[in-house]
């Protein structure tokens, strides 16, 4: 068993630097080649408006993935939240609608956490199930005529600007800052990383694994709810299919941001850089006349190259990338179920 030291989280400071350098390069390139990209500085910020809900979702997913779990329901929760806030806006106040949507999202996150932590079912399966439940709820709630055309005060959350900075981007910044503080500066954050690193060891060292796990999923639900509200405000409509499309890009951001998909390693700041990197890359390539096909292909290539480079960095002492990956898989799968072998 590997020795546990939280210092390991800081093993690869270069990763954030690499991502940051790529981001600067990318922004520079697009600003020079595309005359509509820079827009006096703030104009550039609106380029990633469409990507912001994905980025918000990625913050919650980063927490979950750090614990070695996964939350496949996050996208569906965002959809549900957008529909709930939409239907509530038809009858109630803006604040009331937002509160109801966030409560619903948080409760689903809580349920995810309770089932994963207390029934010991793999988060992949639990959240796959709640994903279906949340989408079905969203579809039935949206009905024949999904809610749309909201009050302008609410729309500010999606498309308004403060001094040229999109409000949605500010929301993303606040969520990212809170999550970063949570992971980097709180005991809750240290616990969740330790659980991701080695749940057994965390348990033996007196960490209440279940409670922390429940907390992480609950926060992920809440953040997915926020993403759904921004979605509804940006598109001026609550749609039952709007959030699902965010899930895989959000997971991509988390992984590109250097978070170990098996948990225990990663930094929120780097995920934020990855979100900006991917968001600007997608829109920048499209602006430059690349087709959507080329754009998705570049995203895929970037992800693979990034992961290979990262693993190569981490295992310089190991004989090969393949061997170390196999070893990581073994460690991921082996310790979870120590007993009975039912062949």
């Amino acid at each position: 068993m590997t020795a546990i030291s939280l210092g390991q989280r800081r093993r690869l400071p270069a990763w954030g630097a690499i991502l940051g350098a790529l981001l600067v390069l990318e922004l520079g390139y697009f600003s020079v080649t595309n005359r509509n990209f820079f827009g006096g500085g703030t104009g550039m910020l609106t380029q990633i408006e469409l990507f912001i809900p994905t980025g918000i979702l990625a913050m919650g997913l980063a927490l979950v993935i750090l614990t070695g779990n996964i939350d496949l329901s996050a996208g569906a929760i965002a959809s549900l939240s957008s529909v709930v806030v939409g239907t509530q806006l038809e009858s109630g106040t803006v604040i009331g609608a937002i509160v109801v949507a966030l409560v619903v999202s948080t409760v689903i996150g809580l349920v995810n956490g309770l089932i994963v932590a207390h029934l010991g079912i793999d988060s992949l399966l639990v959240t796959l199930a709640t994903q279906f439940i949340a989408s079905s709820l969203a579809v039935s709630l949206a009905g024949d005529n999904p809610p749309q055309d909201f009050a302008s005060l609410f729309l500010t959350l999606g498309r308004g600007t403060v001094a040229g900075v999109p409000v949605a981007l500010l929301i993303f910044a606040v969520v990212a800052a809170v999550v970063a503080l949570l992971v980097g500066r709180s005991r809750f954050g240290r616990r969740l990383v330790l659980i991701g690193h080695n749940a057994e060891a965390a348990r033996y060292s007196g960490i209440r694994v279940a409670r922390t796990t429940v907390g992480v999923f609950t926060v992920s639900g809440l953040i997915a709810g926020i993403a759904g509200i921004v979605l509804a405000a940006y598109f001026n409509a609550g749609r039952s299919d709007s959030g699902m499309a965010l899930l895989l890009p959000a997971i991509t951001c988390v992984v590109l941001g250097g978070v170990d998909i098996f948990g225990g390693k990663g930094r929120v700041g780097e995920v934020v850089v990855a979100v900006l990197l991917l968001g600007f890359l997608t829109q920048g390539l499209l602006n430059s006349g690349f087709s959507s096909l080329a754009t998705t292909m570049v995203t895929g290539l970037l992800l693979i190259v990034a992961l290979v480079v990262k693993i190569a960095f981490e295992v310089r002492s190991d004989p090969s990338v393949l061997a170390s990956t196999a070893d990581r898989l073994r460690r991921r799968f082996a310790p979870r179920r120590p007993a009975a072998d039912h062949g």
Partner: protein
Amino acid sequence: MSHHLNRAGVLAVAMAALGLAAAGCSSGSAASTTTSSSASGASAASASSTADSPACDASATGGGVKIASGKPITVAIVPKLLGLPVFEANVKGAKQVASSLNVTVDYTASVKASGADQAQVIQGLVNSNNPPDVIAYSANDPTSIVPALQAAKAKGIKVIGFDSDVTASARSYFIQDTSYEAMGKALIDAVVAKNGKTGSVAILSSTKDATVQNAWIDAMKSYMSSTYPDLKLAGIAYGQSNQATSQSQATNLINSHPDLKALIPIDGAAVPGALAAVKSQGLVGKLSVFGIGDPNPNRQYFADGSLTGLFLWDEVKQGQLIAYVARGAADGTMPAAVGTFVAGDIGTCTVGNSPAANTIIFSKPLEFTKENYLKYDF
């Protein structure tokens, strides 16, 4: 050892399921695009109060503005997604008349049938160094691309829609495939011609909130109750724009209504789904199927006789109309509603305000039969 395998297996199954769920939207609405799928005019629902304008008519001698060539322009056609035969047919049609109109056609779209992806593509066109003069969209859903279209408008790009609309305020003109009433009437008339004025029928639609499909359902319902009161609607099921789901939903309809005379699948995935159900229940020849869809995916069913009738419109000609309307919109020569214009061989078309503002109804429903389906390639 087996733990590893189990777990890996579970992971694989779960990811596959996730993939399916995700594809549910994309491949699903891909298949349904032929019939405007889950999208289209938000205002379509409130349509039926006023009569629709007449469809484009080559034999009409009305006249009105004749759309003619002018200075070179670029038209970006942005359908729901890339690579779908019906949209390829649209683009083919637009290119047929492009040179005579001095139009350059730029065909681009997202890989998935996703509203958000489509919005990014449109935003990319708006921000590019050489933005097009006109953007012609077919929207994945009524709302997702509205902000991007507004950005285009703000830049002076003319915005027109075809097949699937958004809120009318976000675009200048919309080319509606066919009149909802006419389509509903055509389907029910076909059922009555085959099975008589009595009995029960069932409808297989895409999703509950698919605006165009709902408009067709409403049209069928009101035409049935006004003209054929003894024809009963036994039920409506939703195949979620997915062929497998459509098949199981159709099987449910068939089994829960043993006296069913006809099944009416009204989206691109529902047609093959319904036909597969009819075949597997051994009801070919006993239960007729009249649908809305494109002929190419259904060739085998025409050949074996299980598909009794299929309706759509000529996608290639519709593509030609896109080029004409784009030319007119760019030059500002399109008439105000209600007015007419002449679009080459397509004839005289009307800009009307029903079902939504500045709507051009392209065609009467076109019926594909065992005899004529080979003439069309989409």
